């Protein structure tokens, strides 16, 4: 059983701790210095809450946080606020992504309050993909804020308890703030400074883009350590299995921002079972990056291969025997269930008789 549990409410917010921005499990795990694992939930194209529960259940007991994406790739899906609201009901620790593409500052600040009220403890601020990449390229790109000003906005709301306009909040959103990094896109020299900027704007943890080029990431981390940034922010490396060499090649030429070196594609092509090799490659990359100084965890993005996340986490051994939070039935739930069953099956109970028995019962 995980130690980050609120005894009164198994999935609820934890007691506040000094030095902690949120009351969530992810921040506690990172601040304790444990290797964190997060995963990305594939958002459903449906209005059925069960779809979200089913997709989250695969990760149970293996991850410390579940990313609820905000229309990733500019493709329309269930909203991240909605997914987070459902996940918090079940006690999961969602990381709510906010993309600046679709909403202006008025909508975003409202969503932050709403999400926090629903129990969301982690918010990740993104710029978002351009609309041209998605299924509705005719949409109006908003980009009212950018990821940096979004970070600053949410930080102001949390720390100074006020909106961007200066109006006061009666109860600020207590959230752990995240951002994204992509060390694998130009301008390479600027990337570490950009992380510094994000930290200055309020980022407390960052998740990186897919890492397939470990030497490149190592160089980036060397620069990050020189700037001392790894001590100011938790860095989670993005990893994920590639389904086949063909997929890898397609991603490389069609998805901007994902860098896949030739050696990776050659390795996949040479394998008999490409899917299995893709998974093994992911595990190998995890084993390499976890040794890099300053890496605080991994972020597993296994789009449409979510069932592999548990295997990948297990086989890479990054948890070192630790068991992340798992949905456990509340002990009082069984009492209630028994009583309900009793009522359903038992003989008819007459209120007056019961009152009579109670009245004659010695106290």
């Amino acid at each position: 059983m995980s130690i980050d549990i609120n005894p009164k409410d198994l999935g609820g917010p934890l007691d506040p701790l000094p030095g902690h921005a949120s009351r969530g499990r992810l921040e506690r795990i990172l601040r304790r210095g444990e290797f964190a694992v997060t995963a990305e939930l594939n958002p459903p194209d449906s209005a059925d809450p069960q779809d979200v529960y089913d997709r989250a259940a695969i990760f149970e007991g293996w991850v410390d946080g579940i990313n609820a994406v905000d229309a990733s790739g500019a493709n329309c899906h269930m909203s991240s606020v909605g997914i987070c609201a459902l996940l918090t009901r079940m006690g999961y620790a969602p990381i709510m992504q906010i993309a600046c593409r679709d909403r202006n500052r008025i909508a975003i600040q409202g969503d932050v309050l709403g999400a926090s009220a629903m129990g969301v403890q982690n918010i990740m601020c993104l710029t978002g993909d351009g609309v041209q990449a998605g299924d509705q390229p005719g949409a109006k790109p908003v980009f009212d804020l950018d990821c940096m000003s979004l970070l600053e906005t949410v930080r102001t709301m949390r720390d100074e308890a006020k909106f961007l306009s200066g109006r006061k909040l009666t109860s600020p959103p207590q959230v752990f703030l995240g951002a994204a990094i992509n060390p694998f896109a130009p301008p390479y020299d600027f990337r570490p400074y950009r992380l510094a900027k994000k930290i200055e704007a309020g980022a407390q943890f960052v998740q990186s883009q897919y890492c397939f080029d470990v030497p490149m990431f190592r160089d980036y981390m060397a620069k990050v350590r020189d700037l001392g940034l790894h001590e100011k922010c938790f860095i989670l490396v993005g990893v994920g299995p590639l389904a086949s060499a063909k997929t890898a090649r397609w991603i490389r030429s069609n998805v901007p921002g994902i860098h896949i070196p030739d050696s990776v594609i050659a390795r996949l092509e040479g394998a008999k079972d490409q899917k299995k090799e893709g998974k093994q490659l992911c595990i190998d990359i995890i084993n390499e990056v976890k040794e890099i100084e300053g890496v605080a965890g991994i972020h597993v993005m296994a789009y449409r291969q979510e069932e592999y996340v548990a295997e990948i986490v297990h086989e890479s051994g990054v948890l070192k025997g630790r068991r992340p939070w798992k949905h456990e039935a509340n002990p009082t739930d069984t009492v209630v269930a028994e009583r309900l069953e009793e009522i359903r099956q038992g003989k008819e109970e007459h209120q007056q008789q019961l009152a009579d028995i109670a009245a004659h019962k010695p106290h």
Partner: protein
Amino acid sequence: MAEIDRAASSNTGAAAGTGSKPAIGNAGAARKAATGAYVPSDVSPNRRVQRRYSIRLWSIRHARMLEWFYARFASAFLLLHPLWKAIGYSRAEAPVTFVEKRVKGLLFDCRMCGQCILSSTGMSCPMNCPKQLRNGPCGGVRANGNCEVEPDMPCVWVKAWEGSRQMVKGDAILNVQKPVNQSLRETSSWLRVTAEAAARNEIAKDTAA
């Protein structure tokens, strides 16, 4: 980043069907082309699509010279403060905006956001970024340094970093910028900066006296 497999399957089918090679690096355009619908060239979510960026790129290459010039120009404009005050800043607004829009439009492809930060962005106007990022490049920059949204345009922020490395005060690129105040669009940044500097000078004079 998560829409990979579905798009991969639809794209391979489409490419085989039309027989033409889809534009590299833009899944949306490829899918749109696959429908066979008429799509004019240079369609872009960006407000003003240009085919050439040569003058803008020249300005970035000469960022240091422009920085020097801009500093002189700003102090000259400040010296004219009594004149602006005599005319009235609000009355000067229209003609100055007219000139500013055209000069900066030519040199930097200025979009008249009204809160110029060229000196913090290596003389590369960040409003030309399709995402209008004011704090640095997004994660979608292509390996060749071009924009994710407009594959033919060099990334505004890759260029901004190059320009800032030439400038004396280029490290201003590391400052976190506030979000754009949309209510200042199409107003003169020159006049506002001058008015603010003049107000500061006056306060300094008052406290000294």
